[in-house]
């Protein structure tokens, strides 16, 4: 995918946020340019929410700074707020308020008046497919409706930057696809989007760039292809053998470039470090060793596996 603009809309510079001993965000820097979708991926407790809250001017960095459209979130929160829409990972409902009144309240709070407000409401309700739900009380919404309403609230003032914290959490497959389409549509119109998830595959199709974060540190960043490429030396290998399973397992275990061997009946699966040439050589050696191999398959690792190998699953 191509990047649309050169103007940096989100910039993080050596961002730190400590909670006592916990380093929730530990020196993160990156830039997202206009109209790009940045996927922010990491396991639970990685520091995604914390850094997004700082961007949304809800929290304060311990060191470092972040900029939205050139305005510091520390020094010029008023300018940042005008151009940023934030969708947190919680709902934030009012009692006795319906969908329309909720959006209307936030439209007014963002200073929209008169015709502007009505236009913004109409557009947002249409975009998030909330038209039919206008009179529905907020507290009676399903998860999918709630997420759409949250998105609607975040975009009511037509922000140029959207920060979405796990918007796909709890959505069914159809709703996920809808969400993806909405996000693409917003990005195509030039909105810069930062979106978090703990599932890489979920974001792979809609992000221009992804950053993988764990324990407050950015471990890898680039396009999905680049991230996959960094670990392209790895392959998941599957072998079927007629016999001699114990000897095969021992032989595999002895090799340096083989890891995570598992066997089941006549099948063996393992993680192999090496490109296509190395894989061909491996097969040759297996045959030379007189193993009765009847099937050999190697495939690139899935994004899940890439993600698992980059992050170590450590929790603070």
């Amino acid at each position, binding site marked *: 995918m191509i990047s649309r603009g050169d103007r940096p809309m989100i910039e993080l510079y050596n961002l730190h946020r400590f909670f006592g001993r916990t380093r929730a965000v530990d020196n993160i820097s990156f830039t997202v340019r206009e109209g790009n979708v940045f996927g922010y991926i990491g396991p639970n407790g990685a520091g995604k929410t914390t850094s997004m809250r700082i961007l949304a001017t809800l929290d304060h960095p311990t060191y470092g700074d972040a900029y939205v459209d*050139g*305005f510091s979130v520390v*020094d010029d929160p008023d300018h940042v*707020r005008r151009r*940023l829409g934030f969708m947190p990972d919680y709902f934030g409902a009012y009692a006795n308020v319906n969908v329309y009144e909720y959006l209307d309240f936030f439209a*007014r709070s*963002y200073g929209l008046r008169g015709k502007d407000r009505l236009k913004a409401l109409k557009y947002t309700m249409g975009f998030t497919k909330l038209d039919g739900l206008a009179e529905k009380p907020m507290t009676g919404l399903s998860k999918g409706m709630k997420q759409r309403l949250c998105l609607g609230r975040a975009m009511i003032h037509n922000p140029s930057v959207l920060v979405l914290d796990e918007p796909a959490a709890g959505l069914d497959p159809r709703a996920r696809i809808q969400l993806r389409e909405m996000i693409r549509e917003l990005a195509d119109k030039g909105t810069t989007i930062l979106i978090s998830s703990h599932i890489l595959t979920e974001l792979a199709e809609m992000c221009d760039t992804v950053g993988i974060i764990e324990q407050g540190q950015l471990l890898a960043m680039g396009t999905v292809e680049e991230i996959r490429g960094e670990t392209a030396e790895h392959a998941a290998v599957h072998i079927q053998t007629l016999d001699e399973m114990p000897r095969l397992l021992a032989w595999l275990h002895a090799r340096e470039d083989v890891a995570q061997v598992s066997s089941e009946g006549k099948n063996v699966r393992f993680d192999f470090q090496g490109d296509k040439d190395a894989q061909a050589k491996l097969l040759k050696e297996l045959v030379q060793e007189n193993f009765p191999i009847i099937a050999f398959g190697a495939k690139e690792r899935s994004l899940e596996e890439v993600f698992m190998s980059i992050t170590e699953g450590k929790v603070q």
Partner: protein
Amino acid sequence: MPRAKSKLGAWIDRTSFRAAEFLNPILIKEGRQALKSRGFSVPFLLVLLACLFWSFLGVSINENVYYGAVGWDFFSAYYLILAFPLLVIVPFGAFRSLTGEREDGTYELLSITTLRPLQIVNGKLASALMQMAVYLSAVAPCIAFTYLLRGIDLFAIATMLFWLVSASLLLSVFCLMLATLTTAKHWQVLMSVMVIAALMFIFFSTFPIVLEGELQRLPWGLAVETWEFWAGSFATFSGVSMIGALSYSVAHAQLKFPTDNRSTSVRIVMLLCSVVYTSWIGWASYTFSESADDVIAPIAISAAFFFPFWFIMGAFLVGEYGELSRRIRRTLPKTMAGRMFTAWFIPGSGTGYVFTICCAGAGSIFGIVMGFYADLRLPNTNTMFRFIDTRQLVQILVYFPLYLVFYLSIGRLLVVGLRKRIHVGVVASLLLHLIILATGCIVPFAVDNISMQTNFRDMETRHIIETTNVFWVLIEAYEDNISGTIFALHLLGLGGVSMILILLNLNSVIKEIRQQRVAEPKRVREEKAAQAGPPAPALPTNPFSD
């Protein structure tokens, strides 16, 4: 918008739509919520029922209804019925509406909109006012009925309602301010229990005032016809408004962004409070007095409110952080003269310390000058009221600021020292100061009293032992038990130590006021220029916005 059928309907729709554009968004939202909420309609109906019930009951048990002037009896009952929602439900509702939003996470969503903190406070207050109006309208027919019963005049009704609404508004602002003080859940729970208890107490303490008809004669039992009544009422009202203004400015400041200037506006209101207070005291004691004693005694007594106020304010101000954010440093005055003049209004522990000492000192000098002036100008009648003379007044007005400087200086040194290890906020700073004050009083008092049991001492020695016990010394000073020698010794001791403490504090104070102005970043200047460029389209402005 619902489609209107008639032309008039359409016009009403259009007009109310336009009018709503001017209103605070919070007021609109809470108005809509209130219309649907049972938490609002139930108390409203209860008030209505209580009024009806009392009307029937009152008419059936009171034989005088047909002949006598029983308006007052009926009115008191309706008034107390109205006082419950106005003094308890509405202020507590204001408290809960903010803490509740914090709990539900909606406050965060609201705070990152372009709504300013002041608009949030105003919106909450406007919504409290709206509720008051609704309760008032529920009771209004009954009150009109009491007027028809005679025995109460319109003026009395108006004054009493005025004070009730003022009290309700004051309590609402105060509760709102309390709600902004802490975001920690357990403190909020504790605070809400205390708030409801305090409000109930206030409500029940209105009973004797109302039943004895005190409110009609506010203040000091003056008759309505006299201009003193109006002056006194106005003074009372200005006092009430000052407390309200202080709460309001604190609430506003607490809702500001952490790098914003949270202090200057509060300091200005603090100063305003004490200026208004001292002016009224000065003016009233002059106008109402025939002898110098009538002036000096009120001054000495009001000092007992003035200085504790500044001690508490000072303890809060000392709890501020001295390092200015870049955002605040952009607003520092450019010129040397400007800096000299405004330095003590700029946020910071050190500037707050100096600010407090200056204000307290100014108050003390004003009081002393007033006393001497009265002594010169007014006859000294030697009446039985002569219980405080100028010499005593000077003693009191020297002791108060001296103790203030003494305890505030120790407190600040401790705050600055502790900050090298832990975070100390404004509330922690106040607690610290109160602990230091308590220690300074209890320790010598205990030493004095315990050792008294073994060897008896004369009063003079006891005064010396109790030097740091501000309560002891000031009570003795008010009772004129402090001799010149003891006063001189106290002055020497406390004054000397305070001088050293001030010097110790000075270094960090100077560091604070030396902070330099920083230029606005280019991006902000660009934005301002862009905004100033094309004329903005005329949007309706919000009357509650500033």
